[in-house]
Structure formats: structure tokens, C-alpha cells
């Protein structure tokens, strides 16, 4: 019995260190891992398809007036299913590899995206210009100091 214990101890001794040195050395996830969503604001044209398919209701679309559409991402409840990335026609949403998203503030888990839209002359609702360059013609388009173009 003692020899069995000694043999076991020898096996453990030979195995060396198996523990991951994780917080002190990076350990990247496998390719294909879906982490925190990242947004490319210049690609988004505010169709709201992502909000339509999101099972957790992470994405809320509201029109701030007639010229600006605000997409609010409450990604604290994101289930990382990747439907938004799948459905986005312009690849404005991508799933990054970032998993180190622990935080001590609940407000850290919010993303706000503001998209310039043009109002429809008949119904007054937002619609998106056909190309990014046409955005400049819209009355909602602002210069960086907040002024209208």
C-alpha cells in the first residue's frame, strides 16, 4: 500500500506543472469563439435587423427625433449566439474574441450607437440614405461641433 502511494506520488511528480498560468499569461480562445460584440459605426445604416433577431432583447432601437436613430446594446444579458452578426447585411456587428469582460459596474455593459437617418417626407419616420455619401445631404447629418450641414 505504501509503495502504491509512493508510485502515485512519483507519477504526480513526473507530470510537472499542469496548471494554466492564466491571469498572468494570456490564454486565447480557439478560433470561432464568440466573445463580446464589436460595432463598426460607419457600416451600420440602422435597419434594426439585429434587434429583430436578438433572442435576449439586447438591442433596443429608438428614434431620437426624426434625424437620429439610437441603437442601445444592453450586452450584460447577451447570450453570444451570433445571430446579429449573421443577419447584419453590412457586417457592422462582429463577434470579437474578447472574453475578459468582467466588471464591477453594471453601466459598463452598455453600448450606444447613433446612426444618422433622414426623415420620410410623408410619414416623418427615419429612413436610411442609399449610400454613405448620401448621408451628408440629410438634414440630420451633423458636423463634429454639433452643427447641421
Amino acid at each position: 500500500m505504501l509503495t502504491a502511494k509512493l508510485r502515485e506520488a512519483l507519477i504526480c511528480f513526473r507530470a510537472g506543472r499542469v496548471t494554466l498560468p492564466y491571469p498572468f499569461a494570456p490564454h486565447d480562445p480557439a478560433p470561432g469563439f464568440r466573445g463580446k460584440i464589436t460595432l463598426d459605426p460607419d457600416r451600420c445604416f440602422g435597419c434594426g435587423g439585429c434587434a429583430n433577431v436578438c433572442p435576449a432583447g439586447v438591442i433596443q432601437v429608438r428614434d431620437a427625433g426624426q434625424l437620429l436613430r439610437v441603437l442601445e446594446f444592453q450586452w450584460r444579458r447577451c447570450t453570444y449566439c451570433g445571430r446579429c452578426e449573421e443577419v447584419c447585411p453590412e457586417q457592422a456587428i462582429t463577434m470579437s474574441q474578447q472574453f475578459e469582460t468582467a466588471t464591477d459596474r453594471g453601466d459598463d455593459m452598455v453600448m450606444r450607437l447613433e446612426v444618422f437617418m433622414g426623415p420620410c417626407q410623408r410619414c416623418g419616420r427615419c429612413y436610411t440614405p442609399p449610400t454613405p455619401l448620401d448621408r451628408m445631404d440629410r438634414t440630420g447629418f451633423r458636423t463634429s461641433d454639433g452643427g447641421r450641414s
Partner: protein
Amino acid sequence: MAFLEKACKKAFGKALWVYHANAGACNGCDIEVINVLTPYYDAERFGIKLVGSPRHADAVVVSGPVTRQVAPALRRLLEAVPKPRLVFAIGSCACGGGAWFDSYNVLGGADKVIPVDFYVPGCPPRPEAILYGVALALGLVPKQVAEEHLTQESLDQLAEGGILQKEAHG
């Protein structure tokens, strides 16, 4: 006595004894929490140890979107944990309710019932993500996320060739 208190604070300051509370989770997060305690991820090197009673615990790990039945039990559980204490919300469900955030039988997240100190989002979070949350609580790593406000390029930035430049570089 003061010396003893000081010595105790130094010795036990970074040894968290954790009580794990399942508040209606699907067991995905629970499996990852157990995973963190295996020799491969080895949270015990930070002094983390699972205990069987909330009275022995310094920290509570909550997983699951708090269901209506479990909410009073969770409140009583936290009363049993001596102060100072930490509360970790593990997983998207405990952080904000997950896919069930507006369901009739779910309160939508641990922070609706008890004060939460650290959030570890993920569905389920990787064991590394939980370790990262623990390391964040111990002050070993910096925080990597912050509130984001994104806007589209304004006229001035476009005039400087913002989009075209970005495509040329990227």
C-alpha cells in the same frame, strides 16, 4: 489584540471562501464554476475555496436569472453571509436576466434582488473569464470594458477622408 487583528487581515485578506448559489441557472455556469476549481484552472492558488454553508463564506457566487421562488431564499442566504462580503454574478443570466430578462417568472438578474459587486458576463463564461473576474476582485488585473458611445463620422471627419483612409490602411 490590535496586532492579532492586523495579522488576521493580512493573512486572510486574499483568501476568499466562496458559497455557490444557483438561482435558477441551467447548470452551464455551475459547470464552469466547478471547472475553475479543477487543477487545470486551479482557483485555489488565489485562496478560493468552495464551502458548504453561507455562514462560512466571504463571497457568494450567484448564477441564474433569479426566479420568483428562489428570490426570498437568495435574500435570506445573503443575510447569513457575514460582512464584509462580495457577490459575484456569473453568467449573462445573473448579470441581466439573459434571454429570460422579461419573463413572468424571473426577476431578471441577481442585482434586482441583492447588491452585486462583480459581474462576469458570458453564456456560459469561459473558466478563464471567471478566473479573470476573480483576479479583478483581487486587484491583479485591470478592467478592460467600459461604457461605449459610438457615433458615425461627421462631415469634418469625412472631409478629411475618414472612411477612405480607414479602408486604405485597414
